[in-house]
């Protein structure tokens, strides 16, 4: 009498005997499958029990398959309930930012690795082309920066108005940055400094600076300006 056979008569199943149903269903791993098959080959009582299990297996499938399927009502009920659910924050990710991670998540590790390798190759090629272009340079073309042909006169607004009059201006609390920018452009002004009290020292240039008293009056009448006084 084999070990497996011995346990059949007892209340608790033997180790391999207990695995027979999973062997019939094909859900054992390779190692256990081999062990069960070897036991079945040498133990006739175990083989008889396995034959009974195969009948149970077939009839259980038959029984379940004859249970039918749910009606369409179940699906309608489900999606009506889903529609009644509160909007999901994640649904906002349906745009590009949401689809990019989904796209990469859907790729297999092998595909991702191949894409990474191709990307690295492209970078190497690009570096090679740039290197070759530099190496071909005969020296007649010296390295030029963006300031190579810079004009002698400064083009910045602040420098242009360096000699203009200055005023201390406090902007309205609800003034937007775009409004202030528009104001600075209109008066050809630049910010020299800002104090803690919310006062800005502005420097004015161009024609508007010629009549400074009139200029201050116009500035004071601007909606976004609370206060404008001449600076020392």
């Amino acid at each position: 009498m084999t070990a497996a056979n011995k346990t059949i008569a007892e209340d608790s199943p033997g180790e391999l005997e207990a695995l027979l149903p999973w062997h019939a269903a094909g859900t054992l791993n390779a190692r256990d499958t081999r062990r069960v098959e070897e036991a079945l080959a040498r133990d006739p009582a175990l083989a008889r029990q396995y034959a009974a299990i195969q009948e149970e297996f077939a009839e259980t499938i038959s029984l379940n398959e004859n249970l039918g399927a749910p009606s369409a009502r179940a699906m309608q009920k489900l999606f009506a309930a889903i529609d009644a659910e509160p909007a999901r924050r994640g649904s906002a990710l349906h745009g590009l930012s949401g689809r990019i991670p989904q796209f990469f998540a859907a790729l297999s590790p092998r595909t991702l690795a191949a894409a990474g390798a191709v990307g690295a190759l492209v970078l190497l090629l690009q570096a090679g082309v740039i290197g070759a272009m530099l190496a071909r340079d005969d020296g007649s073309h010296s390295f030029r920066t963006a300031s190579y042909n810079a004009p002698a006169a400064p083009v910045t607004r602040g420098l242009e108005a360096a000699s203009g009059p200055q005023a201390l201006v406090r902007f309205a609390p609800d003034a937007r940055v775009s409004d202030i920018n528009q104001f600075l452009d209109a008066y050809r002004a630049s910010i020299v400094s800002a104090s803690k009290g919310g006062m800005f020292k502005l420097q004015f240039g161009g024609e508007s600076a010629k009549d400074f008293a009139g200029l201050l009056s116009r500035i004071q009448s601007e909606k976004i300006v609370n206060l404008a006084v001449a600076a020392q």
Partner: protein
Amino acid sequence: MSAAQAASDEVLIARIAQGDRLAMQVLYGRHHVRVFRFGLRLVRNEQTAEDLISEVFLDVWRQAGKFEGRSAVSTWLLAITRFKALSALRRRKDAELDDETANAIEDESDDPEVAVQKKDKSDALRRCLTQLSAEHREIVDLVYYHEKSVEEVAEIVGIPENTVKTRLFYARKKLADLLKAAGIERGWP
């Protein structure tokens, strides 16, 4: 279920977590019949089983973001179904026979004898399978019909793996007893 489908199920769950309704429809189409049959075998009432699958998939819609992929999606679905089915059975109470009462009465029924009169072993076996207790029915179905491994059954039912093996062994012995009572000997046990 193939490994490819399992991986595909996980992609669907990730999309559902983002609120993708179409992914929900695909997952439903793929699994709702098995979920329904598993639930129906437990609650034994088609109306209740249909209500169950709506509840199960609504839970999936709500909880998809928490799915960690430590088990197959189908295993997760069956675990939710089992939980919902047991809750439904508890709610049933006096309105209908509770499961234990039903089992006790069924054990005394004449159905196996009727099957013998028909001299149809397969029919008798199917009838006896329906006579098993809910505890035994679910483990038989999970292993034979839903093709779940020892580990997966342990996760769905919430019991140790060794208990899974012995419980199925006792379910099979009970099945053999029912068949024997019906006059059918199979040479085991």
